[in-house]
């Protein structure tokens, strides 16, 4: 269970690095501490034994005369004088016959006495035997047993010192490793956040900042280069898309929007007009005798005529009006906003009039063309795109039938009178 839980929540880099560092630091500090402790204990043992020998030697010199004169009281006095002030637990002086001449024993005191005794017996090479020489002749010998107190005190203080040093080293090591984490993890976090932004928000403008670690810096640079390429690619795609979208909704010859675009705009504008109780008008424009021009003068001239017609119609319109080529020589104009249907008629008049000037062709000749315009008004002639288009279409044919190069308002109840008057 623990294993699966662990797999679910992956450890962070900081945790992994931290655990690794902690392990290494503990191992290093522990090993160093162990080595220092072992060496220290060995050195302490050597010195403690040397010290005990030194004490034995000084006892030796002090009691020499007393042993020579076989003076037990003097020997005891001299022995006590030295032993009491040194780390000695027990000291005996023997003469050459093996008789005990003097004996000194430290009184047992303190709670640590048993510990001191066992430490001394395991730590020191004892008891120390040393012959008493007088004029190169042995006159007796001494037997000295060390006391563990000074050794114990030294050992404890040494261990405390080592422990403190280890704690200090561990603290310093953890401090440094924390700094190291910062150095490693900060650039990685930056990289991750930039990558995240690029993936989630498609924001390719952010870049990974520089860092002083070579590998991470290189990684960041490569990542930035990749982002540059992605950004370029994205921009390229966007412009490509825009071009394609334009191509899909516009006529390639005249550059005007096509039928699909126009119908989309018409239905949207109708909804807006309905909501705001506004007027709008739809003009249907057809080029008179365009088929003959096409047939007699060729498609190139026909195209020129269409381009000119498109430009002239566009020139008569206001900024928010829309002109589209529905196909062949048919154009449609959406006039919005509009005060009244009469305004549409005025614009239609201007459009028809704009064709009075002959069209100059590329080959130097010119050609005359005229337009027939059908007008349908909202809300008078229909409430939906289809009915409006039909009405305008019908009006345009009426205009064509009556006389080419004319405009005509859709035949509805409200405009019937007007129609009569105009025709």
């Amino acid at each position, binding site marked *: 269970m623990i294993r699966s839980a662990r797999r679910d929540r992956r450890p962070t880099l900081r945790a992994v690095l931290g655990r690794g560092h902690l392990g290494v630091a503990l191992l290093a500090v522990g090993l160093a501490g162990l080595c220092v402790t072992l060496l220290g204990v060995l050195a302490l043992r050597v010195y403690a034994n040397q010290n005990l020998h030194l004490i034995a030697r000084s006892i030796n010199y002090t009691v*020499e*005369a*007393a042993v*020579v*004169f*076989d*003076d*037990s*009281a*003097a020997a005891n*006095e001299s022995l006590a004088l030295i032993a009491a002030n040194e780390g000695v637990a027990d000291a005996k002086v023997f003469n050459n016959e093996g008789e005990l001449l003097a004996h000194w024993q430290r009184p047992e005191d303190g709670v640590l006495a048993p510990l001191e005794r066992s430490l001394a017996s395991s730590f020191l090479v004892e008891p120390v035997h040393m012959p008493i020489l*007088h*004029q*190169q*002749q042995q*006159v007796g010998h001494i037997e000295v047993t060390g006391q563990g107190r000074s050794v114990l005190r030294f050992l404890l203080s040494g261990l405390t010192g080592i422990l403190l040093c280890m704690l200090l080293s561990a603290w310093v090591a953890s401090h440094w490793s924390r700094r190291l984490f910062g150095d490693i993890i900060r650039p990685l976090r930056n990289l991750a956040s930039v990558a995240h932004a690029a993936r989630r928000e498609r924001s390719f403008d952010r870049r990974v900042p520089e860092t002083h670690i070579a590998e991470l810096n290189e990684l960041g640079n490569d990542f930035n280069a990749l982002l540059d390429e992605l950004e370029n690619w994205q921009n390229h795609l966007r412009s490509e898309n825009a071009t394609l979208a334009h191509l899909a909704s516009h006529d390639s010859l005249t550059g005007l929007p096509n039928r699909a675009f126009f119908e989309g705009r018409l239905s949207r504008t109708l909804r807006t007009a309905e909501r705001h109780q506004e007027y709008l008008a739809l003009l249907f424009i057809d080029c008179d005798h365009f088929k003959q021009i096409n047939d007699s003068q060729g498609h190139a001239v026909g195209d020129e005529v269409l381009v000119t017609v498109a430009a002239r119609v566009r020139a008569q319109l206001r900024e928010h009006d829309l002109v589209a080529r529905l196909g062949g020589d048919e154009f449609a104009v959406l006039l919005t906003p509009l005060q009244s249907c009469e305004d549409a008629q005025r614009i239609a008049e201007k459009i028809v009039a704009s064709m009075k000037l002959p069209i100059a062709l590329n080959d130097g000749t010119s050609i005359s063309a005229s337009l027939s315009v059908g007008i349908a008004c909202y809300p008078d002639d229909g409430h939906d795109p289809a009915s409006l288009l039909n009405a305008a279409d019908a009006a345009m044919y009426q205009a064509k039938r009556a006389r080419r190069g004319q405009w005509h308002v859709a035949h509805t109840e409200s405009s019937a009178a007007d129609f009569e008057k105009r025709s």
Partner: protein
Amino acid sequence: MVAVSTWARATGAALALLLAALLLYASPSRAEPAASAALAQQRGKAVTQVVLGIFSYARWPSEPAPLRLCLIGPTEYADDLIKGTEQNSGKPLQTRRLLADDPQTAGACDAVYIGKLDRGQRERLFHALSGRPVLSISEADDPCTVGSLFCLRVSDEQVTFEVNLDSVARSGVRIHPSVLQLSRRRAVQP
């Protein structure tokens, strides 16, 4: 003057005197018990040890070889000492008895072990020895104020000694300080 006379030492000396008097005036024909003989032998051994110990801590202006020890006057505990031919250090020791007023005493001895002498004999002896590097040890009854460098105090438990520092300084024989220390400590002992 180093010799310290305390009441205790005085009593000790008085006792020794009494003992010596008893031994002297008691009829020699009366056989001492065996235990007493063994005791005397033990004392003699202790005296030998102390005397040889003192020799081992003494330095003459010129190292005598062999060391000539003269026993002067009637001695009580020197029976063991006179058999000795070797010092503690292993160097040869020459021991002989001299009469109290022997004229060659001053020239023939490096050390003298003085037994029981009367006042005039003592004075003449020390007069002869004065200015010479001779180590003198009194066996008994010496308050250690004038004359001998060392004065023994023989008891059953122990043989102790006192040092007359003035005499030591005058004699020209150097004595190791640890012996002086030992003697001073002994002086306060009963």
